């Protein structure tokens, strides 16, 4: 093989808390079979070598990212921000303290795939709903692998920006949330 073999990042586990389980596939597995096997398990880390091909798949928890919202909109009332505890936001070279009560954050898609807001008949989240850290609020199916979107903090969902079963790209904003101190 003369060039890079590519990588397989951004794959999320059934549960981001699953233990890291390095696995070796048998030599006859091809890429499609590997993806099918991974889709049906909660394996978090996977390493596979065959001839000159070496694949490493690491499933990392979805992170809630600040972004896309104008910094001014995030910062809100600066007088309040100065005294507010908690979240820090980078604003160019500066780091500023922000009012966590009025801070809107975004949750982005970890992969190219199809977004789901429901699990069968069960709706996973809705606008205005208050969610607790660790709650599954949606998922993205990328090549048959389910990548759950898990809240990493207590928050209120202020907007859901994609429809159920909508095709999403990597980094596309799926949710806007407002952090809550519960």
């Amino acid at each position, binding site marked *: 093989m*003369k060039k890079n*073999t*590519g*990588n397989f990042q951004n794959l999320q586990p059934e549960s981001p808390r699953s233990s890291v389980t390095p696995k070796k596939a048998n030599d006859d597995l091809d890429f499609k079979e590997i993806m099918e096997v991974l889709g049906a398990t909660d394996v978090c880390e996977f390493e596979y070598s065959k001839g000159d091909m070496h694949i490493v798949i690491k499933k990392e928890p979805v992170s809630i990212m600040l972004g896309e919202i104008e910094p001014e909109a995030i910062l809100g009332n600066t007088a309040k921000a100065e005294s507010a505890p908690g979240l820090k936001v980078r604003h160019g070279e500066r780091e500023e303290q922000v009012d966590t009560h009025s801070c809107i954050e975004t949750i982005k898609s970890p992969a*190219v795939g199809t977004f789901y807001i429901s699990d069968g008949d069960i709706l996973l989240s809705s606008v205005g709903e208050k969610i607790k850290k660790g709650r599954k609020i949606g998922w993205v199916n990328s*090549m048959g692998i389910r990548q759950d979107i898990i809240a990493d903090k207590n928050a209120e969902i202020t907007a859901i920006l994609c429809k159920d079963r909508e095709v999403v*790209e*990597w980094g596309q904003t799926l949710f806007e949330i407002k952090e809550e101190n519960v």
Partner: protein
Amino acid sequence: MFKKVLVANRGEIALRVIRALREMSVKSVVICSEADKNNFYCGLADDSVCVGAAQAASSYLNISQIISAALVKKCDAIHPGYGFLAENHHFAEICASYGINFIGPSPETIALAGQKAEIIDLMKRKKIPVVPGSKGVVPSVKEAKAVAAAIKYPVIIKATAGGGGKGMRIVRSEKDIEQAFELAGAEAKNAFSNADLYVEKYIEAPRHIEIQIAADKKGKVVFFPERDCSIQRNHQKVLEESPSPQIGPKMRKKLGETACRVAKLINYTTVGTVEFLVSKDKFYFMEMNARIQVEHPVTELVSDIDLVKLQIALAAGEDLKLKQDDIKEICHSVECRINSEDENYMPSAGVIEKLILPGGPGVRVDTAMTSGSEISPFYDSMIAKIITYGRNRAEAIERMKRALMEMKIEGVTTNIALHQKILQDKNFADGCYTTDFIGLMK
């Protein structure tokens, strides 16, 4: 014909493929990284999809996300462009396993073309002239010394997985071979994750001549007028022209026929390039490039055949309708690769504050840059390919001089001055140059 093609590349080659697909009435979906999302060419495709972060490993080399993009966008084929995954046989194999057509040769052919030691060995067995050297991989300095003693110095140590001058060392005497072997191996391991090396006779001052071929799935192969790619710096092509000013009809026919034989021997399909070293009246097979190449426009202008459209049609299973006699040299063409680079010729990142492109008779510009575009440190630093053509070599060169004079780039430093120096050189004007031309240029 395909209905919708995923363009799995970026920049000028992505735009080149989008344009070909548009003219063929085939829908296009272009992938992009987060850094390229707002580039204008993404808007020229029918659809675009962001597949990852700016780092190529997260986006343009991220096979799972690229395949996922093809599946959710319902593409029936992927065009890999050049670089990134274009010659990754695993990627071609994975495309096939998902029922997606890979626009290029078969995975087996890509794998064979990529293993330089193996393909050289095959050519030797089939009596195609190759540069004398080791039989396959040389595992130790001791064996490298034995090969060098047999074929005589100077020799060149090359990485089997190499390309672009990486993992390559010229050795002129036995005292230098140990260090060169170690350095080439370390560089190859670092660049290609494969430290395998081979040794061959170093041909002094050759011409680097390549032959574009096209082949269908029934085994029909045709060749195009040669490209002379001898103007190189650090084994990287800088300026190309077609036809070569120093190749006569007899050598042209020999190279063309050999290139077709090579393609047939490895069951090559779609378009590809066979590279040769030519020294006086001798020629040696160097390698087969299993992709569309950066310099393909010179051949398009000289032959008046759209190679990207031909590549897509052949990948879709169409028969090669061209006959060898249909391919004529209708003009002379020159291409200058305009790169963003600093005074030490190193790639240089930055924002193009102002870009004025040349035009007028006989000028073609392939670029995905505009004023305000960023030369990202994550990707190659090519700004544009300026390609000129004329009724003869002198006219094509004069048009290139004029085009480079018209071109204005502010915000980043470029290699335009180097191109102007080459074009003014008497030896270049006379067509007397070899691969050491830039090093010897005054």
